[in-house]
């Protein structure tokens, strides 16, 4: 029989005992989930900060929203196998699903020449292994950490009255982060090419290559275009850069060389805002060939997120904190946009069709 307790105060204590464990668990859960630390930088706050600048566009990537799908292949040349066991660097060919895009969260922005351009790549091994890359055409990243990335987005958020960033906010961000001045200067004087097809895309973040003996080499990498003088005539209009890319691919497959830069003694590995010396050893890893272009509406890049931490054996993340935040934020963006109705992208199958007809006529 359940014993009857003599004193009511004892009974209260016992009920408190019953409640103690669930309350303890709930408190631990709340602490872990960050509900008691509202200033934590999370997937959600990073995405909210991006949306604060460019607005929310359901169904689109929360950053690099305007883009096209491409496919082709990557063929390693075996040279970089001295540094990494990755099968992708051996002399063999693997299919690639890629995406060219403009940075920023606005899916219908006009193709301004100065906009940061990007290339997402998924190198797909026969064994299910993949190497995903998300690379940009800038020399360095403007910030060092996810916290700084978020603070920068908040600083450049457009003022509702003017529709433009508040110069005072931007100035305050600069003043508070003097160590980012050299990155800002490098970004301001970067060369701008005439299109996606003759642009160089860089990893910015560093990665580690492991060889068979377990020896580790820190590298950054870039996709360097084969042709730098492109004879395709310039186009005008909202989608000029993408149409030009379609014309270039229609003319002949486009090729890039994967070039690794090995960290030298003075190079800062875990900080994407710092340029490397320029004296470093470079190694060519293979050739990327892109021979087809497709709208996001039908292409297979839409169902992929170019999470830079999807890496094959032989390649791993450096200690760069931006890589970790990217992996987390890309997953959240990918999940959210995949639940939203599929929107119509700026570059539709029709846009690309007219381009290839223009070419044929």
């Amino acid at each position, binding site marked *: 029989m359940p014993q009857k307790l003599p004193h009511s105060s004892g009974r209260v204590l016992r009920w408190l005992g019953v409640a103690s464990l669930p309350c303890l668990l709930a408190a631990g859960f709340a602490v872990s989930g960050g509900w008691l630390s509202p200033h*934590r*930088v999370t997937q959600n706050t990073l995405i909210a900060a991006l949306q604060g600048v460019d607005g929310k566009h359901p169904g689109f990537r929360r950053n690099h929203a305007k883009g096209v799908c491409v496919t082709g292949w990557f063929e390693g040349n075996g040279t970089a196998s001295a540094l990494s066991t990755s099968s992708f660097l051996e002399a063999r060919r693997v299919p690639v699903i890629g995406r060219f895009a403009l940075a920023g969260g606005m899916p219908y922005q006009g193709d301004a020449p100065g906009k940061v351009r990007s290339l997402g790549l998924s190198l797909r091994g026969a064994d*299910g292994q993949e190497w995903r890359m998300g690379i940009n055409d800038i020399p360095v990243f403007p910030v060092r950490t996810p916290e700084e990335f978020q603070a920068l987005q908040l600083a450049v958020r457009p003022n509702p009255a003017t529709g433009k960033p508040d110069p005072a906010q931007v100035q305050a961000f600069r003043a508070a982060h003097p160590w980012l001045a050299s990155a800002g200067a490098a970004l301001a004087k970067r060369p701008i090419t005439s299109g996606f097809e003759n642009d160089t895309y860089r990893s910015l973040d560093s990665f580690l290559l492991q060889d068979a003996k377990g020896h580790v080499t820190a590298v950054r990498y870039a996709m360097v275009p084969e042709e730098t003088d492109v004879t395709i005539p310039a186009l005008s209009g909202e989608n000029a850069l993408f149409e030009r890319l379609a014309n270039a691919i229609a003319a002949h497959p486009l090729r890039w060389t994967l070039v690794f830069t090995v960290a030298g003694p003075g190079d800062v590995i875990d900080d994407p805002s710092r340029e490397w010396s320029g004296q470093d050893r470079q190694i060519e890893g293979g050739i990327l060939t892109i021979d087809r272009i497709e709208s996001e509406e039908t292409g297979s890049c839409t*169902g992929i997120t170019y999470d830079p931490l999807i890496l094959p*054996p032989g390649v791993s993340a450096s200690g760069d904190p931006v890589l970790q935040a990217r992996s987390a934020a890309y997953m959240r963006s990918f999940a959210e946009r995949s639940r939203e109705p599929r929107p119509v992208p700026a570059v539709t199958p029709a846009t690309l069709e007219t381009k290839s007809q223009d070419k044929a006529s």
Partner: protein
Amino acid sequence: MSRPDVFSGPSRLLHWLMVVLILTMLFVGVFMASGAGPHYHMLVSFHRPLGIAILLLAIVRLINRRFNPPPALPADLPRVMSLVAKASHWALYVLMITLPLVGWAMLSAGGYPIPLWGQSLLLPPILPHDATVWGWLRLTHTVLAFGLFGLIMAHAGAALFHFLIRGDRVMQSMTGMPSDPAE
């Protein structure tokens, strides 16, 4: 037929081992999914194999249950309470199995390679690549995980209710204290 009044040794071992594993998973899960910190990738890489281990252990546990049935609930337990107890135990079993399966299925549908251990050993996909399915399963994983957590809070409270309020032997049946020899 007289049933023993404590859970069998293997049942108790599995129960308490899984208490530690599942609570770890829930705390690690909400921590990593609400952060973008320097350990994010390491935590997700730990979350996957631990989740699969829970899936396997849950199956072992159900098999073990066939051979070592649980002791009867106290005879004087009100009917509703014993129904709720049984239903909640089955719900716990169902969640221990569906939650890791949803985790595995969502990454399959998302087109993610699913490394189980290190980078070399990949789990095969159990669903075809379909981003819409990924998006909804990712949400389902959160909803089920929070449901499991709520159920565990109630379950832990119920165990203490048996111990502190009713003063019956339900708690001891899982801690393994044998009955008072005097009884």
